[in-house]
């Protein structure tokens, strides 16, 4: 697993200052991960992955080309490989059209964040699951190990972000019902893992009651923070980016145009300073500590990548090319946790949502399924779980005229995605009480 001296060695060897106006940059994404998946509290598959992908980019005279390579972890061999590719890219630039929207950082901003943890060994994880969940139908995934994002360029900038984390996501199942548990952090605790399992068991006891059958229709509903994070996760895909906003393909186009508004209590921001995502991106741009995206229910900033910033003539937020928020937060409200069931009265408690997509992008209308701990509440009391139901409703309405309140406490939902590599992102959200949620199937 690479350490800071490797970044410096690669940076010095490949990104020395250049006198010809060209810029060479290096973006590293590395991890040494232990992945374990469990079924029936037994190990289904265990994999150790050591990988470092280096994106080498060269820019000269308004032209740019880039290659992403896997590094072997042998410094001399890696420098030789990267140097050869750098020279190939510099030669290739003659065949690359000039890019009028190319924008490089205009200042040098070194950053460093290095957080060490106490992580479990694979054997410790197996023992913990086997010891605390033996005999139960426990299905789980555990990812653990250090993750690095790093950047170097020939302007002299160096950025380093290394965190050591573990992430347990499990499902405890009984009688067709399932309870979700998440145990994530930087310092592994066998006791804390056992406590999460106990909480899941307690919830399963409620889920053991006979399930209620729901008919399609409008329901008063409480979305727990994990469910709100699912809604915001879909919204993130094209709701907040500047390119989507300007090309008319944003799900928040009506918010941006002023034709629609969220409730005035809705405040959203990309809060990089409070998240786990690195404060710099693949192009060397550092990110503001906070970018307000929705202020008092109305559109504020759109996240701008360097390319969009140049194309549309605004300041860059150093956002990724996809302009996705990576540290999105929704401000808390005033609903106290102890008052939630009473405030819900007669309605649905929705613990999680699943498989969201847009049924009408331009209306910000979403569809998806309820999943895991979902209950019918009557008179402020949980009376029965209900089977997965499909909803189809506008988020502009749910967090607009349909919003009854947001909880006073929030949860940080850490991204569990591991496509290609472990993702460093989070959504921080309160629970939301809404009226008229449309269930369809």
């Amino acid at each position: 697993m690479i350490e800071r001296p490797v970044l410096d060695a690669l940076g010095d060897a490949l990104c020395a200052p250049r006198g010809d106006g060209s810029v060479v940059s290096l973006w590293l994404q590395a991890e040494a991960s232990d992945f374990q998946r469990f079924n029936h509290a037994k190990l289904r598959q265990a994999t150790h992955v050591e990988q470092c992908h280096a994106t080498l980019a060269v820019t000269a005279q308004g032209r740019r080309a880039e290659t992403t390579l896997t590094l072997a972890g042998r410094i001399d061999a890696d420098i030789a490989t990267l140097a050869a590719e750098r020279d190939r890219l510099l030669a290739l630039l003659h065949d690359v059209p000039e890019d009028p929207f190319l924008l490089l950082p205009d200042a040098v901003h070194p950053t460093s964040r290095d957080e060490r943890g106490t992580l479990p060994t694979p054997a410790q994880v197996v023992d913990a699951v086997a010891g605390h969940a033996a005999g139960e139908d426990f299905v789980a995934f555990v990812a653990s190990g250090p993750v690095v994002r790093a950047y170097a360029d020939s302007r002299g900038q160096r950025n380093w972000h290394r965190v050591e984390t573990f992430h347990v996501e499990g499902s405890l199942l009984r009688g067709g019902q399932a309870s979700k548990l998440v145990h994530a952090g930087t310092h592994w605790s066998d006791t804390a893992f056992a406590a999460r399992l106990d909480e899941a068991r307690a919830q399963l006891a409620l889920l053991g009651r006979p399930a209620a059958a729901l008919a399609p229709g409008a329901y008063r509903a409480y979305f727990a923070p994990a469910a709100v994070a699912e809604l915001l996760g879909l919204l993130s895909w094209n709701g907040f980016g500047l390119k989507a906003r300007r090309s008319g393909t944003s799900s928040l186009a009506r918010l941006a145009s002023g034709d629609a508004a969220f409730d005035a209590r809705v405040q959203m921001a990309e809060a990089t300073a409070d998240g786990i995502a690195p404060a710099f991106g693949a192009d060397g741009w550092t990110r503001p500590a906070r970018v307000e995206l929705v202020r008092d229910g109305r559109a504020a900033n759109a996240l701008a990548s360097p390319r969009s910033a140049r194309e549309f003539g605004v300041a860059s937020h150093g956002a990724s090319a996809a302009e996705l928020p990576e540290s999105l937060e929704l401000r808390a409200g005033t609903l106290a946790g102890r008052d939630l069931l009473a405030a819900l009265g007669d309605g649905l408690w929705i613990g999680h949502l699943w498989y969201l997509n847009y049924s009408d992008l331009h209306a910000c209308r979403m569809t998806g399924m309820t999943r895991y701990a979902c209950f019918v509440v009557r008179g402020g009391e949980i009376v029965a779980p209900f089977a997965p139901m499909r909803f189809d409703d506008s988020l502009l309405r749910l967090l607009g005229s349909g919003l009854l309140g947001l909880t006073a406490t929030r949860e940080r939902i850490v991204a569990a995605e591991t496509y290609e590599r472990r993702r460093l992102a989070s959504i921080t959200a309160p629970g939301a009480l809404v009226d008229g949620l449309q269930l369809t199937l």
Partner: protein
Amino acid sequence: MLDRLESLARRAAPAGVDRWSVRGVVDDTLHLTVRQDVAQAPSRTLDAGVMVTVTAGAGTGHAATADASETGLAAAFGHARALALAAARHSVFDAPYHRPPPARGRHATRVEQPLAALGLRELHARVAHACARTHVDARVVDWSAGVTATRSEQLIVASDGTRIEQQWSLVTPSIQATAHDGGTTQTRSSAGQYNGYCRQGGWEVLDAARFADDGVRVAHEAIEQCAAPPCPAGTLDLLLMPDQMMLQIHESIGHPLELDRILGDERNFAGDSFVTLDMFGSYRYGSELLDVTHDPTLPGEFASFAYDDEGMPAERVHLIRRGVLLRPLGGALSAARARALGAPVDGVATTRACSWNRAPIDRMSNLNVEPGDSTLAQMIGRVELGVLMRTNCSWSIDQSRDKFQFGCEHATMIRGGRLAEVVRNPNYRGVSATFWRSLAAVGDASTFEVMGTPFCGKGEPSQVIRVGHASPACLFTGVDVFGGAS
């Protein structure tokens, strides 16, 4: 890297284990995009590494490394062996009861115009031309064209003498247009905004996709949709074209039939299945017109291969015949697990990993609906009131792969047996367990198209993998159809 992998692996492999294997992968991908006639920086990815697998006693462990030296492989073997020993104490299954037989073979995509034959400048020119053709007038407010081309090589070597070399050449073109007219914005694409047209082959794939000039159609349809009325709501007949059928097959046949889901491995993430082990051999999945094959042998389809990643040889197999469910989508290991539970199911060659850094699991490969005997005109002609939908743009389905809701980019009403007006924002919903029984007609070979997706997600850790779906147009009756709110 692959040329020395076998000899280095044999030197680095540990003694005293029951079986070891290495799977080396080298993927070389080039991606070009031109948006609004501005070329974006060409992006190349050279992804290379090795997955090492060790079986020791009752356990199996995997370790991935990009260091393919003898030292690097030895370290990976050490990790894999340690994991195998840890797994042996608490494994879902005992590794020895599934031991893949030795296999030796080669495979390579049939290519007419090799990827190496086209230089960057010429390829840029092709993409730029396709992009420019898409800007038909000022109502098109955003437009782009792109190409992703991958040359992938894989070598599997195992302690039992297995040696499988496979090479693939993969091309995915895409064109997209967003039009704004009369206060409405609509997006149309050549074959889906998530690259439904993807094939094995060389640059001839661009010609097959009509890449050079298809942007004109794409743009005009986006403009046309802006002026179209909303799709009506009601219980209607539904005629799905292949670029929507592929999604319908994928979500409501492919995923439910994955044997590892049925065995419960995916319940913490992707979910389980409404299909249970006792259904194979008797369950009526669809009408008598439904024939579904797992066919990794179809040349040109996106997930064709000669062996899966456990070394099982590829074979065309019916999973559903005349509507009756016969076999699951599970590899040899999952099939052995199912048989141990008393279910007499056979596996198919479909255990695959997305790359060197992930261990193989049950995936869809090429999952196809076989052609029937109806022409498109005959199917349209028998519909009194219905909708013809093309090109998926939205998909959502429950964790048991039962209740679904899908949306399409383009739709045309069918009235009195004739195509009528275009409508916008079409959606439909249903239940997998009953939807396929409403299959009323299956298009003949003239309606059959080979599609696929580069983006099938599944697994923990997550894997996104290429799959193929070929299908004729298909007619369903009594479907819950509706439009959008804008």
